[in-house]
């Protein structure tokens, strides 16, 4: 009993310390944002690493999620005799929720874990110390370009995911299940709002990108610099970032769509 209370106390203290450390981490990064944007070469490389390399998984997943949505939507809506609404349903669920959220989850798994592993390894092989000895701030040279690259890459990936998802839904419902193509697009066009739906979905993707970038780099920078420590930190990145995305999504949805 006492042990349980003690462990509760210890874990809440550790949580508090973690939050404090994270806040400090963000505080260190903030002043570097303006300088980071101008290091175009570093930034392009990191956008390539985070964004372009995540493209295959985003493309595949987007197509399949859209196709499944079309299939399921068609089955459900058929019972109400309104198959034409399947386009609206696919588009709205992709734009508002699935696009940003699934793209973010895949991004956390693909790019976030890679970032943690890379930065953790850089620390364990003394590359951070070496940078400092060369009078180069590793926060500026290593961390900042990666954070910015995530924030640039994920919203783009989310838009690609949404577009391909809608295309996948179109292929299944119009091409296969015989929904009228005109009705598919016109219903969608009437019910999807640029400001209320698309912009909000985009904002979600940006918020998720910030979260994933911070979690991944924080875990990388504060990982115990051994191979075991780095591999644990990588797992933590995926778990924390994914849960964070889902939790934030609930909060954002409740602010945006009520």
């Amino acid at each position, binding site marked *: 009993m006492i042990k349980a209370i003690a462990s509760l106390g210890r874990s809440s203290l550790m949580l508090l310390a973690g939050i404090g450390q994270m806040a400090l981490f963000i505080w260190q990064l903030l002043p570097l944002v303006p300088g980071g944007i101008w290091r175009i*070469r570093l930034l*392009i*490389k990191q*956008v*390539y690493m985070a*964004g*372009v390399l995540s*493209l295959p998984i985003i493309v595949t997943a987007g197509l399949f999620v859209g196709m499944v949505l079309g299939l399921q939507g068609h089955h459900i809506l058929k019972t*109400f*005799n*309104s198959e034409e609404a399947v386009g609206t349903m696919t*588009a709205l669920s992709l*734009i508002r929720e699935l696009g940003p959220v699934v793209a973010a989850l895949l991004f956390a798994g693909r790019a976030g874990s890679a970032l943690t592993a890379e930065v953790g390894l850089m620390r364990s092989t003394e590359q951070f110390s070496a940078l400092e000895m060369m009078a180069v701030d590793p926060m500026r040279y290593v961390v900042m370009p990666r954070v910015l690259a995530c924030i640039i*890459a994920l*919203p*783009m*990936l989310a*838009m*690609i995911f*949404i*577009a*391909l998802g*809608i295309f996948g839904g179109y292929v299944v419902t119009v091409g296969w299940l015989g929904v009228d193509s005109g009705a598919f*697009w016109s219903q*969608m*066009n*009437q*019910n*999807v*709002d*640029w400001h209320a*739906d*698309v912009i909000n979905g985009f904002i979600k993707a940006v918020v998720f990108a910030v979260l994933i970038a911070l979690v991944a780099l924080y875990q990388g920078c504060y990982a115990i610099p051994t191979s075991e420590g780095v591999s644990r930190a990588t797992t933590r990145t995926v778990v924390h970032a994914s849960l964070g995305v889902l939790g934030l999504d609930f909060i954002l949805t409740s602010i945006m769509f009520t």
Partner: protein
Amino acid sequence: MSKQLKFEIGVGLLVLIALISTVFIALKVSNFSGFQERSSYQVDALFSNIGGLTARAPVKVSGVLIGRVDRIELDPVSYRARVVMDIYSEFDDIPMDSSVSILTSGLLGSQYIGLEVGGDDMVLQAGDRIHFTQSALVLENLIGRLMVSLTEGGRE
């Protein structure tokens, strides 16, 4: 520097695909109409029941879109629903005595406002009110009336 070139080409492609996707979503999927809203003027109408009408629902004449519902509120004087509509500026010659009714696209589709053009010489100006309105058909009322007339018909 071929590595840097590879990065730049890759990122360029990513941006291009993302741009195409965004344009596709903007034009084909959503009702994006440029960065500016189309210029419009507002008129309103009072309904005793709006059914399932929502903001941004279309306003149509003979099935052609001429505007959208801006907002719906309760008129504090008459306790009826006040529907404010944005009518696009190019339709500036709608007679004063036109009537609006809340219609449904399809049996269970979404609801919209249908405008029946009148014959008055006076045309609607910004801030005017359309006085002739017909409320939404509420299915329960309809069925109720049907039941009444059926039972009455049976008695006779």
